[in-house]
C-alpha cells in the first residue's frame, strides 16, 4: 500500500513538472520570415527562452522576445514550454540577473509590439496570442 502511494506521488510529481507539447495553444511561436527554421522541439524553445541556446544553426544571434508577465499567452507559453508557472520563471530570471549569469529576454507590451520586434530583427523569436495578424515578413514556427 505504501509503495503504491509512493508510485502515485512520484507519477503526480512527474506530470506536474513536465512541459506539454506546445500545440493547439492560445499562442503561436513566430520568427522573422528570413529565418529558415520551420519547426522546433519544445525543449529547444525552452532552452532558447532560458538563454541556454543563444545561436541559430548559421551562427547568428538568437534574440528572444517575450510578452509581459501578466499576459495570458505568456502564462500558457511558460507552462507548456518550460513546464512551470510564470512566477517560477520570474524567480529564475531574478536569480540569473542578480547573480550576473544572464539577462532575460526583452519584453514587449503586447502582441503587436512582439510582431514588430520580430519583423525588424532577423534573429528574433517570440510568441503571440493565436490569431494575431502577422505581416508577410513574420512567420509561425511549429513547436513539437
Amino acid at each position, binding site marked *: 500500500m505504501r509503495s503504491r502511494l509512493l508510485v502515485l506521488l512520484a507519477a503526480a510529481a512527474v506530470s506536474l513538472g513536465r512541459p506539454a507539447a506546445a500545440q493547439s495553444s492560445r499562442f503561436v511561436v513566430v520568427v522573422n520570415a528570413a529565418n529558415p527554421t520551420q519547426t522546433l522541439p519544445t525543449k529547444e524553445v525552452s532552452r532558447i527562452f532560458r538563454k541556454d541556446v543563444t545561436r541559430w544553426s548559421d551562427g547568428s544571434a538568437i534574440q528572444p522576445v517575450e510578452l509581459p508577465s501578466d499576459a495570458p499567452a505568456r502564462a500558457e507559453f511558460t507552462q507548456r514550454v518550460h513546464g512551470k508557472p510564470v*512566477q517560477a520563471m520570474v524567480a529564475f530570471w*531574478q*536569480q540569473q540577473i*542578480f*547573480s550576473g549569469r544572464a539577462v532575460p529576454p526583452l519584453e514587449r507590451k503586447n502582441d503587436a509590439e512582439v510582431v514588430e520586434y520580430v519583423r525588424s530583427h532577423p534573429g528574433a523569436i517570440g510568441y503571440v496570442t493565436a490569431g494575431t495578424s502577422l505581416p508577410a515578413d513574420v512567420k509561425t514556427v511549429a513547436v513539437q
Partner: protein
Amino acid sequence: MRKPLLTAALLATAAWTIPVRAQQIDLSDKIRLNGYSNFEFEYMPSKAGRGDGNASFDAQEFDLVFNIIPTDRLRVNADMRWEHGVATEDSRGNAAISHAFAEYTVRDALRLRAGKILLPFGIYNEIHTAKPAIFLYKEPFAVYKTEKLGGVRRFQPRSGAGLEALGSGGLGGVDADYTVLVVNGETTGKKDPFEEDDNRAKSLTARFRVHPASWVMLGTSYYHDQLTEFDATGKDTGRRTRQSSYVQSLELSPGPVLVQGEWARGNVTPSSAPGTDMEGWYAVASVMLLDRYRPYVELQHFDPSRKLANDEVRIVSPGVNLRMDGGLYLKFQVDKYHSLPANTRFKGVDYTELTAAVAVAF
C-alpha cells in the same frame, strides 16, 4: 544684429532637436538596469541568547545591477551595493562592488569572464545578497555563513578577482551546466585580494549541475585555496594553510512544490597544527499557494568541528513568503536555535528569534 543671431540660434536648436525626438533610440537590448532593496526586522523575545533583544530595524541593502551589451557576444556586468544605510561621513554601513566583470561568449558551451566574480559554490552563494531572489529570510547559514554558527571559516569566500570559464549544453540528452573559476583567493595579510594576491597559489572553484528533468537539479561544487601563514612581524613564512570544501545540491520543483537540500563538508588545515573538519547541511520544503503565498519550513544543522563533541547547532525555521505585487515580497520567519554547550558562539543557550523583511526586485 543680436536679434537675428538669436533667432538663427533658436532655429538651429529646433532643427537639431526635432528629428532626434521623432526618432527615439531604443537601447533596451544594449543596456539593462535592474536592482533590489531589502529591509529587515529581528526580535528575540527572551533575555538569553545571541539574537536581537532590541527589536531592530535594518535598512539592509540597496543594489543596482547594470548590464551593458555592446555586441551579441560581449556583456559587461556590475552590481553596486549599499548596505545598512551607508553614510561614509559617519563611518557607517558598507558600499561595495559585489561583482563586476566582462563576459565574452565563444559559444553556448564556452563563455569566458574576467573581473570580480561571485564564487559559483552551491545554490545560494551567487545570489546571497539578492534577498528578493531568495524566498527564505536569508540564505542558509549552515552552508553559506558558518562563522555565524561558530565555524572557524566559511566553506568558501563570497567572491574573487580572476578568470572564469562557464557554459551549458546537453549531455546525453540531459541539460547540464558547468563553471570553473580561478581567482586570487583569500588573503590573510593586509593585501586587497581583488588587487593583489599574497601568494602564488590561486584558488579554484568548480561547479557541475545536471537537470534530468525541468523540475530536477543535481549539483556538486568544489573549492580549494592555500592561505599564507605570516610570522609575528608580518613576514611570509612560506608555509600555507590549506582549505578545501565541497557541497552537494539537490532541488526538486514539481508544480507548486519546491524542495531544496545541500550538504557541505570543509577542511581547514594549518601547516603545523591539526586541521578542522566542518560539516553543514540544510533542507527546505515549500509550496506555492494561489500563485502568491509560499509557506515553508527549513531545517539547518552545522558541526563546526567534527573532531569536537557537543558543538553542533540546529535551527528550525518555519516561515512564509508573500508576493504582494510585481517584485514586492514580504517575509516572516521564526528561527528556533538549539545548540550544544561546546559551541563557541551559542554555548548551549537555546533561543527563538522572530524575523521579517520587505524585499523588492526591479
